[in-house]
């Protein structure tokens, strides 16, 4: 069994392409996370506008992208856009699909965070003459982020795991490379190695998150 799942020769051969895949996984994550956070921040700030014409489309947008499975969104863009004459390629489709999806999740988290800051904070800041945007930037947002840091980190963990979906549209991230190697060698070792790499990459974050979540739940 060791030879099937942990074949040393295959490991040695597949290692370089797996590493390249890991690089792409990290590159993709490093692109999507800041984009998603920025998008989420915009959504959270828009949510403060009382106008019906803003709130309802906003809620519809957020619920839509939370209801829509990310893989379907990805396939949609990847298979559908060429028919509309737009050629985006694997990376582009993945980036846009994930930006839309994670932006909605980050938006909800940040919105809850902003709501959790007592209104007295903004009142005090405004009473000293700080403008609305200064109050948000220096007083409310720092506290909001602090309050929802576990959720933000948890969502970031999800984003990194989501990159594995890129393998479905032939984006050469880690899982794709592993499956290529597996189909070439008829041996599942590359996938096992890829799993180990994912684990090594993400386990520290999982442990940290577990500790934070427990603390947050106990405080509440």
């Amino acid at each position, binding site marked *: 069994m060791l030879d099937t799942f942990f074949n040393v020769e295959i490991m040695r051969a597949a290692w370089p392409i797996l590493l390249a895949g890991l690089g792409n996984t990290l590159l993709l994550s490093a692109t999507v996370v800041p984009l998603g956070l920025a998008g989420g921040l915009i959504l959270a700030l828009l949510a403060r506008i009382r106008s019906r014409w803003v709130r309802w489309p906003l809620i519809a947008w957020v619920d839509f992208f939370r209801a829509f499975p990310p893989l*379907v969104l990805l396939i949609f863009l990847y298979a559908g856009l060429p028919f509309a004459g737009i050629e985006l390629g694997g990376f582009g489709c993945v980036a846009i699909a994930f930006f839309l999806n994670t932006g909605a999740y980050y938006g909800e988290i940040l919105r809850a965070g902003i709501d959790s800051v007592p209104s007295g904070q903004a009142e005090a800041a405004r009473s000293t003459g700080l403008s609305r945007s200064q109050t948000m930037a220096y007083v409310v947002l720092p506290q909001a982020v602090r309050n929802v840091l576990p959720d933000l980190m948890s969502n970031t963990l999800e984003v990194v795991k989501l990159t594995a979906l890129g393998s479905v549209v032939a984006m050469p991230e880690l899982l794709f490379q592993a499956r290529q190697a597996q189909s070439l060698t008829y041996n599942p070792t590359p996938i096992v190695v890829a799993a180990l790499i994912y684990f090594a990459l993400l386990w520290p974050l999982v442990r940290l998150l577990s500790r934070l979540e427990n603390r947050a739940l106990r405080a509440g």
Partner: protein
Amino acid sequence: MTGWERFLDTFFNARVLAKYWPDILLGMVVTVELAVLVVITGLASGLMLALLRTLGVRPFNWLLIFVVDVLRALPPLVIIVLIYFGLPSVNIVPSGFVATWAALALVLMAFAEEIFWAGITAVPRGQWEAARSTGLSFGQTLLGVVLPQALRLTIPPLTSRTIAITKGTALGSVVAVSEILGQASSAVSNSYNPSPLMLGAAAYLVLFIPVVVAGRWVETRFAWKR
């Protein structure tokens, strides 16, 4: 044809839609079956593990925590692929459906265990002490006093996590499960037309928007005060 007509003909082609909508419908049935199975088995096993964890058997707990960490760290698609392509090497050949179900249920089990455990430990010690001091056994205290209170705390995070995982049923299409995306993808390749994708997208929305809205309602109703 005008640009608009060409757009409709490409993405909303009546002939293609008429031909493939039954397949999409079948796909919806499979998606729902898969989702329901995953939710029931995932939550039940997660709760079971959390309850077992309260027994305090150290080696068991360490193993449990390790397994849960692995399941939380790996992308679900990797687990599906491991099961579907890996197990045949030891003469276990799961179908795509079973592989997807097992993978998603395991992931939900791991997250659910963590959430249930956090809920149980968040119930103040005083509750345990009060119940035990009136003569209730460990089991009675756990099930009658602590768990009901723990559940209240766990519902918001559990709801959102469960919804996120059930959307993973779409991953089944990667291992030839004929759920919605799988059906839509084959229809697209067979007809050289993306209309089935629009139908598939609509099918997902029909299924999941009510779920997300209900989830939103549940979360606000059970939101705990900070």
